[in-house]
């Protein structure tokens, strides 16, 4: 076997694959072979590096060099310069936007410096389609240790002591969940991995599954041992084809090595994992709806109790954990709960993965210790607001969460502090908004989503979210009154109190939270004015009578004939007919048309 002197890691996450990282891999293989270096250099496809903004990304070891925005055409130059002559390809290095300096090593980049990767530990480091690479980084050691030396109670105690809380949104202590399922009477029990990542803008679970599928399989087996289950199900949305493919490969390889199946590690413990595809309904992320969908029924939630821990899949005790939660399990077993307790804040231990999106410079996936402030995430890691604009707010928790404003930029982020300021952790989507974002439109966007995703089982959600959406629509069209505004608020409160499941109960949050912090903006819409000029219907073009020379150029251009006036006299725009196309503004020779 040849000894490789270089490893080229090419990002094989969905984002970089969409920018043809497969072409990069293919070109590397061809060119290296052609130049006779294929025995010295290994090219691998790995998981998401997180810096999606700069993708496709490649990293070269042992030089520890990080190239960004690489195209298949750049490969020849990288081979000629870097691989053959040991010279870095300067133009492909990441340039720090503040220092205006090229940065060689990943660890020196401000995007990575504040990060601590536990759940994402292997993403970008291993080839996810090779179980031996996972094993080389202590993979399956936690499962082996647990089966050899620990009782299920020991495992549960470790998880309770670690204070790991559910990363899917609710933040329920994972150890307790396992304990309930362990104590529940029943000969057949189930572990379900919730991979139905439905929040708009969230992609952390997908990236973990694509970049490190074995970490989830291993954790499911550990959970199975802890509660006494022999079957694991992964409920994954069918829109994640790459994650599904990597999971299938991982399950096959684990079975081949005897790490799944009968008598794992020579013990009496048997465990198998099956995939179950979801059709992408948002409500199926709610555990009771998810279980119903897994059973082949309509994806509708039901009342709790009974909790899934006592009566879940097929009426048997079932434990449902989210992908990111599971990805934390093996490191906790290996390093001990005390290690995990030292990371994060008092009540929220460990790290959280956030998907940064929106009006931010560095869109991507980041993992930081709990208690990191929003300012650090937005400005240090995220590189600030795109186009040098001012920060307005961040939406966390997706359609179930709320906005965090400038005033709370320095709040340390954990489960409790976010709840205290009217938002929630959610799965970790973080949508950054700049000064040009209209808060009423944002609330409308989320309500449009929830009213469409409502399963229709309970009235408050089915009808309530629709009516809330209609009020918001009215506001953005300038047709709402102050009475509407008060009714809207009241309606939000009652939907929150009366809906059946988490989806409905949290659906009004985007409205309530924006109303709390941006009430003025709502009132302005009632007065027919959108402060950020995002609501098109509220804009009006006018003509400055003093500047207008009555040339009629605008009259000829106007597609709806809404401009009138005598020749050489000032003209006027009929706002009721105007479609705000801006044609008059473009054509006016004396800049008399005032753009809103």
């Amino acid at each position, binding site marked *: 076997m040849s000894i490789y002197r270089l490893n080229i890691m090419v990002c094989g996450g969905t984002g970089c694959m969409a920018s043809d990282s497969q072409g990069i891999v293919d070109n590397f293989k061809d060119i290296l072979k052609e130049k006779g270096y294929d025995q010295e250099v290994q090219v691998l496809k790995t998981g998401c590096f997180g810096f999606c903004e700069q993708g496709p990304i490649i990293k070269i070891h042992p030089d520890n060099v990080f190239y960004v925005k690489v195209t298949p055409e750049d490969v020849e130059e990288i081979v000629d310069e870097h691989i053959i002559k*040991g010279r870095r390809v300067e133009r492909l290095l990441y340039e720090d936007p503040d220092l205006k300096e090229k940065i060689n090593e990943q660890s020196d980049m401000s995007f990575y410096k504040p990060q601590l990767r536990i759940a994402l530990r292997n993403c970008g480091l291993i080839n996810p389609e090779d179980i031996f690479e996972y094993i080389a980084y202590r993979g399956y050691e936690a499962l082996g240790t647990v089966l050899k030396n620990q009782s299920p109670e020991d495992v549960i105690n470790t998880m309770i002591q670690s204070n790991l809380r559910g990363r899917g949104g609710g933040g329920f202590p994972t150890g307790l969940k396992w304990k309930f399922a362990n104590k529940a009477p029943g000969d057949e029990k189930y572990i379900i991995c919730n991979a139905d990542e439905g929040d708009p803008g969230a992609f952390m679970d997908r990236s973990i599954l694509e970049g490190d599928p074995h970490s989830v399989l291993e954790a499911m087996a550990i959970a199975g041992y802890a509660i006494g289950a022999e079957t694991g199900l992964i409920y994954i949305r069918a829109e994640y084809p790459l994650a599904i493919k990597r999971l299938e490969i991982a399950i096959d390889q684990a079975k081949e090595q005897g790490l799944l199946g009968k008598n794992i590690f020579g013990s009496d413990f048997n465990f198998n994992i099956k995939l179950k595809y979801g059709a992408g309904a948002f409500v199926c992320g709610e555990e009771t709806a998810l279980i119903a969908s897994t059973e082949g029924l309509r994806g509708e939630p039901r009342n709790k109790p009974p909790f899934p821990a006592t009566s879940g899949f097929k009426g048997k005790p079932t434990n449902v954990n989210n992908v990111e939660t599971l990805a934390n399990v093996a490191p906790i077993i290996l390093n001990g709960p005390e290690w995990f307790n030292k990371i994060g804040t008092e009540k929220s231990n460990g790290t959280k993965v956030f998907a940064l999106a929106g009006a931010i410079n560095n869109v991507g996936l980041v993992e930081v210790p709990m208690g990191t402030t929003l300012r650090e995430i937005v400005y240090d890691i995220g590189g600030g607001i795109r186009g040098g604009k001012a920060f307005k707010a961040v939406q966390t928790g997706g359609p179930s969460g709320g906005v965090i404003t400038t005033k709370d930029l320095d709040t340390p982020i954990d489960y409790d502090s976010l709840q205290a300021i009217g938002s929630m952790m959610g799965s970790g989507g973080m949508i950054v908004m700049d000064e040009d974002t209209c808060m009423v439109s944002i609330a409308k966007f989320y309500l449009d989503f929830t009213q469409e995703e409502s399963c229709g089982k309970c009235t408050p959600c089915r009808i309530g979210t629709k009516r809330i959406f209609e009020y918001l629509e009215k506001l953005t069209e300038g047709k709402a009154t102050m009475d509407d505004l008060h009714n809207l608020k009241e309606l939000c409160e009652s939907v929150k109190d009366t809906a059946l499941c988490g989806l409905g109960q949290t659906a009004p949050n985007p409205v309530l939270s924006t109303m709390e912090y941006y009430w003025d903006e709502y009132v302005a819409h009632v007065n027919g004015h959108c402060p950020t000029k995002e609501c098109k219907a509220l804009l009006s073009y006018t003509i400055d009578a003093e500047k207008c020379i009555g040339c009629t150029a605008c009259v000829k251009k106007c597609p709806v004939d809404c401009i009138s006036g005598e020749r050489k006299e000032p003209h006027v725009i009929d706002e009721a007919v105007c479609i705000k196309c801006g044609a008059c503004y473009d054509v006016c020779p004396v800049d008399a048309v005032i753009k809103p």
Partner: protein
Amino acid sequence: MSIKSLDELMNIRKKHEENVSLRDNDNTSQTKLLVGMATCGIASGARETLNELLKEIKAQGLENVKVVQVGCLGYCHSEPTVEVNIPGQDAILYGPVTVDRVKELVERHIINHEIIEELVINQNFDRA
């Protein structure tokens, strides 16, 4: 084939750790060997030297030693050049390190921490 015990897993891991060892980055504990791989180096056989270094390190079972290719160090008269960086010690630049000197370099300097005087280019070379 199936893994039947934790010990078996550990053995399998040991075998595969080598394949990923290139990806470990720890500047405080790793010994780094920098091989000059510019045109002058390549022409004098730096590529062969580099590959021989890797082979020798593997044969000796050395861990935590990293071989990194770099550009021209400016000593074109003594290519191929190899700079040895052992944490906590001064960097030593050797040249010409031809394939036949590699074994000696690894044994004497890397394993026994003995400087091979006759092969040193400039002993006062400060750490990069």
